[in-house]
């Protein structure tokens, strides 16, 4: 099987000037597949519809944690309500300032082992899949790779 066989088609995306508050809302209402609503990561497209970046829950956490906390061990001294306070402070930040810009992508025809290799090497949750024109056509999720393994081990040969 290849990336295009297990990917979820892209239904919703963000633009670079979406604010953090809007992003959170969009991620709540984005469609995951036919039945489910709410995603933990979305791709960001520029004006021309090309991939500009990706925003995941972790990117949003990073945007909310003050930069000085990465420089010293201050976690023990934080106060109740600090996270919410900081979140409200940065609500107006735009996607282009919080997204991960260097996105690891795959071609639609890459075999699943290629995807699994990237997931483990770069600690990914999702990999955007590009078509021949370089446009995003879907996303391969870690869980779908895992289902492929489940299938291989638990289902009888040739089904």
């Amino acid at each position: 099987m290849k990336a295009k066989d297990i990917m979820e088609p892209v239904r919703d995306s963000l633009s670079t000037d979406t604010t953090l508050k809007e992003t959170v809302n969009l991620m709540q209402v984005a469609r995951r597949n036919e039945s489910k609503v709410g995603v933990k990561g979305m791709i960001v497209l520029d004006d021309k519809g090309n991939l500009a970046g990706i925003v995941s829950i972790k990117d949003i956490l990073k945007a909310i944690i003050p930069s000085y906390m990465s420089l010293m061990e201050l976690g023990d001294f934080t106060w109740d309500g600090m996270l919410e306070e900081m979140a409200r402070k940065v609500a107006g930040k735009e996607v282009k300032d919080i997204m991960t810009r260097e996105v690891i992508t795959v071609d639609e025809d890459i075999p699943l082992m290629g995807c699994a290799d990237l997931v483990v090497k770069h600690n990914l949750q999702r990999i955007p899949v590009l078509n021949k024109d370089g446009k995003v056509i879907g996303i391969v999720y870690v869980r779908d790779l895992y289902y492929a393994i489940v299938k291989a081990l638990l289902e009888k040969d040739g089904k």
Partner: protein
Amino acid sequence: MTNEVATAAQPFVMDSTFWTATIIFILAYAIIVSEKIHKTIVALFGAALMLVLKILEQREAFHVEALGVDWNVIFLLISMMIIINLMRPTGFFEYIAIKSAKLGRGEPFRIMVIFAVVTAVLSAFLDNVTTVLLLAPVTLFIADALEVDAIPFLIAEALASNIGGTATLIGDPPNIMIASKAKLDFMSFIINLAPAIIVIMVAFLFVLKIIFGKKLKVKPELKQRVLEMDEREAIKDPLMLKKSLFVLAIVTLGFMFHGMMNYQPATIALFGAGLLLLLSGTHDPHRYLAEVEWPTIFFFMGLFIIIGGVVKVGLIEWMSLKVLAVTHGNMFGTSMLIMWFSAFASAFVDNIPYVATMNPLIIDMAHQVWPHLQGIKLLHNPELMPVWWSLALGACLGGNGTAIGASANVIIVGMSERAGKPISFIRFMAYGMPVMILTVILATIYVWLRYYVLKI
């Protein structure tokens, strides 16, 4: 001990080598000031040119003290950085910072004063950049907890670190370089500079009181956030902390007595770094060595070689003759000229290349004035001593003038920008320049009174 001070005194001619070296020197400094290319790259390439164009021989650049890399400076810096890198994970610096904030009882102005004093004291014994890197994050954190503007606190810390760093041999790179070239020991710096710095620090706190004493307000319920912090939670590795404090005590004692025991400061620091690495029991020294600020270290190395080139061809001698033409060999005039020129020069350009140039220039000048003296007799001539102290005071205190005057300022400005609280060049200068002028005036009075009136 052999002395190579005399090297600089050869007669010179303004031949093609002279001009080549001069052009490399001027271009390198101009590009460093313009910040178009990273200063470390400029210094290393300039140094390489000095060697490739045969202005300096490699042997001179690597092995001759008066012309090449000053390994005393290099190993002192590297060793102190290793000690700090080993100490950081213990949580000691978080402990000090949180403890300081609590001592301030959540009162913003009290916290500002305590942080300024702690910064000054730490800066006297650690590199200024290290000090602000350790204190500024906690300052931003405390300012968020109290919901006050962090910028006045950060600027106060940058200024305090430059003031405090002036007090000792290891406090600020210019002092390390001056000590090495002039063969001055740790205690001479304490005896000659610390009294001036204590006076200056008191005056600085008074200025803070006038500017911020009544301005900073905080809601009473927010003070509780700071008071509830338990600084003991910061300590992550008590055993390693004990080892670190033990080594730090040895290093401090070593610095105090290195002159008496005839050790160079770098020997003391290297012993401390080696001992703490050994005591830490680490099998992965790579981690602590990798965190050494190698770009700074290589910047120094490149710079020393570039300066060596212009010393060898006689540019520095020519410059020293020009200074003498202005001062007519009057050492009081020279002290004052050097202090004020150094202050304004250091406010706008990196004081490291500046002092690297001034050191051989002063030695050359001394050589012209007292041609019959050699070695320590020349370097420690009682009439020359106030000139060294004026250079240290001017170059270190001058760093406060602008946001780019000292590395500590650059770090503070960068960090507050990343935290979404940018400090403009003008805003920094509005505080920094008056403080610089005030502190240099006090330093001027100190030098005049101590060395030319009381003569002690």
